[in-house]
């Protein structure tokens, strides 16, 4: 349990941000991370290489978040998609790298929900196109399109930082 507490402290915050962006809701994200840790704890034996723990946890979060989305999938109603939280300013937002991340974060938040999800599942969750398609209940061709559009928009927004 000590080792697991360490894992939770180390990766919990990232799992939470990830789940929250996927689901568009902080409350649900907390539930999903909690479930993911329970699953992770039970299946800790399946983890063959400890250095993969983060990727492994992110996959669990992805699948748990997808379960949630299935639970109330219909379409991306404005109602069940919390508006992106206003970016909390910190006093030292002067470093360029930070500004770049901020710009990217804002750009990500501006993407339509399905594009965000595809992009997050691919880039953070490490999901393959087929897995994203199954998870979101979309044809693979649609996932391709959404992912391409997400990347295009992000690149466009990031242009200033080249």
């Amino acid at each position, binding site marked *: 349990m000590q080792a697991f507490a360490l894992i939770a402290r180390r990766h919990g915050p990232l799992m939470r941000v990830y789940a929250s962006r996927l689901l568009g809701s902080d409350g649900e994200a907390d539930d999903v991370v909690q479930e993911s840790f*329970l699953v992770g704890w039970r299946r800790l034996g399946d983890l063959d290489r400890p250095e993969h723990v983060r990727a492994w946890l992110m996959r669990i979060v992805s699948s748990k978040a997808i379960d949630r989305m299935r639970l109330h999938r219909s379409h991306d109603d404005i109602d069940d998609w919390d508006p992106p939280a206003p970016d909390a300013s910190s006093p030292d937002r002067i470093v360029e790298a930070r500004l770049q991340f901020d710009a990217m974060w804002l750009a990500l938040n501006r993407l339509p929900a399905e594009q965000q999800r595809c992009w997050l599942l691919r880039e*953070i969750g490490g999901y393959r196109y087929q897995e994203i398609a199954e998870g979101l209940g979309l044809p693979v061709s649609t996932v391709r399109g959404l992912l391409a559009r997400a990347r295009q928009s992000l690149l466009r927004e990031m242009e200033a930082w080249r």
Partner: protein
Amino acid sequence: MNPDHSAPDPELDGHTLAELGEYLDRGRTPYDPSIENSPGCRLALANLTRLAGLSGGLLTRQAEREPDRDALWIAGLLEIIRAEIASGRDVPVAHPDPALRLTLTEAAVRGLVRQAGDTLGGVVMGRCVLDGDVGEPGAVIRLDLSCAVAYGLPIAPTVDWLRERVRAELARHTELVIGAIDVAVDDVYPRGGAADV
């Protein structure tokens, strides 16, 4: 190969950004000279690579924004996990051979209850507490449950249905004597299509 949504970009020598993204996702294999020899494509690939490189750091940085809040939250989370796993009492299961001692763990029983609720349709289970001496065969156990119900479902009949189902599942898999099943509906979630059917 060409996704229907975007026409080839003249700057990309007939390729699309989607194709390039997928090429990158495949680890730039199999080697495609028409991409690798095009300056436009190489520039786009470099940008996509940069974007992918930033994406990991992007969420990590967001995650590091509120360390205090996170520390509290993680502590709470670990408390819940401890309660779920560590406090699992043994629930005896009778066997004709008195020399054999069979038990279920309390966590397994909770798992049955959750499963019964989560697969009902329109219900997402929350808390599940077995109140009573589960180690004593025949002792009456009260269940204390909480759940979220899909918006628009009539709450009272749904809860009755949940109770019935939990009772049936526990009767099937355990020898627990279940008394009252108290259910607190503590949330309502937007109703979806597919999962509720």
